[in-house]
């Protein structure tokens, strides 16, 4: 029997949102991608095979939706300066932990993607490697390195609560939802 879709949203919503933020930054783009993922999932839900790995499926859909969003964004070709001044229509998007997502955006691409798909999205090393064109061992190393970097820059610095406050971030270094130039997902 197919479980009620609401339970899928409750169970996997937060982890898919983390993946979207790691792929797109903590701005409105991640929220758009999340919505697209769950709308697509709701549409297909009655037909999806029983016993499939739902979270893995959602994460691969998130990847596709994130690619669409980045292509559309690049097509709009908004000058970088304008983009930086733009604010999320949803207000302070990252909340108090905005700085953390900015640090994720600043990670080397391999580490960021390994974190997104394996650590946050729960995909196996092999599945992650397939998705980003790498090897399981490289994924393992990249995810571990990425985590180490984040812990160093956030959790070992001062008290964790202080470190996570967006207000404490050096102004102008990163913007909400910033994605490294030319990054892939």
């Amino acid at each position, binding site marked *: *029997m197919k479980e009620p*879709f609401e339970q899928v949203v409750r169970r996997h919503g937060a982890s898919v949102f*983390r993946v979207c933020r790691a792929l797109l930054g903590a701005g409105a783009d991640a929220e758009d991608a999340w*919505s697209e993922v769950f709308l697509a999932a709701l549409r297909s839900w009655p037909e999806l095979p029983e016993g499939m790995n739902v979270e893995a499926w959602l994460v691969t859909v998130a990847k596709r939706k994130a690619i669409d969003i980045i292509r559309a964004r690049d097509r709009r070709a908004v000058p970088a300066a304008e983009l930086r001044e733009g604010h999320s229509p949803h207000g302070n998007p990252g909340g108090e932990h905005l700085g953390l997502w900015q640090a994720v955006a600043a990670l080397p691409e391999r580490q960021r993607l390994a974190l997104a798909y394996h650590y946050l999205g729960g995909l196996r090393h092999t599945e992650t490697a397939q998705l980003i064109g790498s090897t399981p061992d490289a994924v393992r190393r990249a995810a571990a390195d990425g985590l180490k970097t984040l812990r160093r820059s956030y959790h070992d610095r001062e008290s964790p609560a202080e470190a996570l406050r967006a207000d404490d971030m050096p102004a102008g270094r990163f913007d909400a939802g910033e994605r490294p130039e030319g990054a892939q997902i």
Partner: protein
Amino acid sequence: MNPTHWSVRDASDSDALFPVTEAEMAKLHDRLAESAVEQALVDVAYRTVDSPIGPMLLAVTEKGLVRVAFENEGFDAVLEQLSARISPRVLEVPRRLDRVAQELDEYFAGSRRSFDIPLDYRLSGGFRQLVQRHLPQIEYGQTLTYKQVAELVGRPTAVRAVGTACATNPLPVVVPCHRVLRTDGGLGGYLGGLEAKSALLLLEKAA
């Protein structure tokens, strides 16, 4: 499932490292519900409400109100039943049930005597549905016996089957099976428990 619970906490330390708040998830859920309704992707919309006889779950299809459930039935189990019987496209969309919730509020406040909402009887078949469709004819504050209802639907010997139809009514309160009693004056059965049944009868007597 606790309708307000989000699995924002991970077994790993990703929750500590990558916090996502309940408020953020609630906002995303609202937006999803709105788009899903717009795109006609929700086959069963539900919400929970508080009432003097405890929390209740209300569910609608495009045809109308399809389920009213009491907490003692287990809301998780009720949602799974709706998923299996109607469609797994089940989503919490409170807005879709605003009118039902309002009429229930008025009923419990004693200011409403009958419900004016479309009903979807699809969860009951055959004789049970026939009986349930007749129940709204019993007026507010009145009661009939199972035997009288059997006569009402033209099957005077089917007293036991009428009892089953009342006990399995998927739309309690709105379809007033609580107004049917045993011939000896006993309460008979009720999905929400006998306490709920007598509370409803008392409410209607007082109003």
